[in-house]
């Protein structure tokens, strides 16, 4: 355990990554539990809904007449 901690916190870069990762993880868990919903951005621009997992769907949805 000690050695893992020493590794994760051993250089400034690893420390940054570890801290940010833990933070993001907590944010995600909290958002999941509390069921947070976005109130702000629901952009119309289709590029904002670009999700690499759905690239095919995106291709078919993209407006042709521009």
């Amino acid at each position: 355990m000690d050695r893992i901690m020493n590794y994760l916190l051993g250089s400034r870069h690893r420390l940054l990554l570890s801290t940010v990762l833990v933070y993001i993880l907590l944010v995600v868990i909290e958002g999941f539990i509390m069921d947070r919903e976005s109130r702000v951005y629901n952009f119309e621009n289709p590029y904002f809904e670009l999700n690499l997992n759905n690239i095919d769907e995106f291709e078919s949805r993209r407006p042709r007449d521009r």
Partner: protein
Amino acid sequence: MNDATLGRFLILLRREMWESNRLFVASPAVLTGLLLVAMLWTLLQVPTEMKAEALQQAGAYLDGVSPIDLSPAFMVAAIPFVAVLYICSVIYLVNALYHDRKDSSVLFWQSMPVSNLATVLAKVVTVCVVAPLFTALASGILILIAVIAVSILGAGYEVEISGVWPLLGAGIYSIVLIYLTALLGSLWLLPMVGWILLFSAYARSLPFLWALGAFILLVLLEDFVFGTQFLGNWVESRTGFYNYLVFSIGDFFQRLFSYDMLIGIVLGAVLLAGAVNMRRFTD
């Protein structure tokens, strides 16, 4: 915590104020001065009849209103001060753990028997607890001068302003509310404080760019790769005007112990722990 520890922490706070005097003391003071000048100029410009009529209407409106109910109205005056406070706070935080590494004076600080935790905590307390004091005072002075001016004017135009004292009381109470609002706002944004301090301690140059860039990158990455917006939602939950305003002391404690506030403090603490640890790397 015994006396010695408190004394040592206090000198750390004083050291922060010595270094950042211009950001936290001079800026609000200058703003007060500017707004006073603006006020004076307006008073001189507005024709006498309009002034008398405005005072008459104000007098009628304020008649019988209690100071406590009145104070929130005064808080409008604090808006520019709080804006200045936030801008100065960001500047302060970006440099807090960066500047002394740039000019090597960090080696002096590290040669003192002060723990990294105490160092970082002192900076957090400075920005969240101490700096708002000067903001509240500066805006308070403006409010009080305005109240006194209006009362004198009212007397001059023989307009009934229902007593100077309730107004003054409202003014003083509003100073307290302004302080609590600023304090609460800073605590509410503890995650952002922690984020900036983390990058302030990490970056070898351009810490603000790092803090901002990393954040934007993460938000975009999350959406592009996972299609989720947890990070964005989390940050967005920190905005919302009504989360900040404190209209009564009861308000303050209610907000302070709300779930959102507490979870924010916990997450902010995670980032601050990172910043404390990052302080070990002085090269």
